[in-house]
């Protein structure tokens, strides 16, 4: 129990650290992350799908999310970088898991907004105001996610800026068709995860 509490505190500390000092926190995560910490990310994921189960899908959505996560870490750890494959895989598992934080926040908030202010939006003053808020909120989380993805690759693979950009472009080139495919198959409700 104490062990779980310690890992939970570490998880919270790293999560808040990624908001206020993303660079230093991601560097720390790439060096000394405990596996039990990552368990909390899995718990948050399963909890999300359990909550949405009441409204939408369950197993197929979770399976899709897990497949994308596993494919991402395997793909990134296979790219040429500093260290052996195992070292890179360990680092990428730790740092890439934390890049899911903006995704969680977005999905949990969207779930909440769905019940508080149900769609569709209108072009009235209130509708436009909420649209501005929602686009700004989603945009901020997207930029934060991109920063975390950049830092994750930088510290896990320990490569320079140009190569990080190249790897990110490569990652998107492979992932975007996959996201669209999952959207068409009905695994995800929007064409990205």
């Amino acid at each position, binding site marked *: 129990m104490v062990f779980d509490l310690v890992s939970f505190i570490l998880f919270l500390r790293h999560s808040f650290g990624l908001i206020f000092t993303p660079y230093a926190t991601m560097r720390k995560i790439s*060096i000394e992350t405990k596996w039990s910490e990552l368990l909390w990310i899995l718990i948050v994921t399963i909890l999300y799908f359990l909550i949405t189960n009441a409204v939408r899908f369950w197993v197929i959505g979770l399976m899709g999310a897990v497949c994308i996560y596993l494919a991402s870490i395997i793909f990134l750890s296979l790219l040429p970088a500093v260290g052996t494959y195992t070292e890179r895989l360990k680092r990428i598992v730790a740092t890439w898991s934390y890049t899911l934080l903006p995704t969680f926040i977005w999905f949990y908030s969207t779930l909440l907004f769905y019940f508080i202010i149900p769609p569709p939006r209108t072009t009235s003053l209130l509708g436009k105001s909420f649209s501005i808020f*929602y686009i700004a909120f989603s945009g901020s989380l997207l930029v934060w996610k991109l920063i975390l993805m950049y830092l994750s690759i930088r510290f896990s693979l320990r490569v320079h800026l140009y190569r990080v950009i190249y790897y990110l472009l490569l990652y998107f080139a492979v992932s975007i068709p996959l996201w669209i495919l999952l959207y068409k198959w009905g695994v995800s409700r929007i064409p990205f995860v």
Partner: protein
Amino acid sequence: MKQKTSALLKKHLKEITIIEPNDLGIPLLTTAYRKVNIFFKIAPFVFIIPISILGAIGLVYIFGLLAVQIVSLLQYGF
């Protein structure tokens, strides 16, 4: 106490030297990169949130109905 501080400093030094600093090849570019990079290292939301709000206002102003429809689509996406 002195030994503890020394150990902590050594640990921190090791931590910050795990990767080489970015060198973009052109000194002017490297300097510009370092100046911009500072904003992303500590509390990036201080800059991201105002820019996102301005961007969102611009999008709704330019695209109007389309931007509102995209919000509706995203709201169904959870």
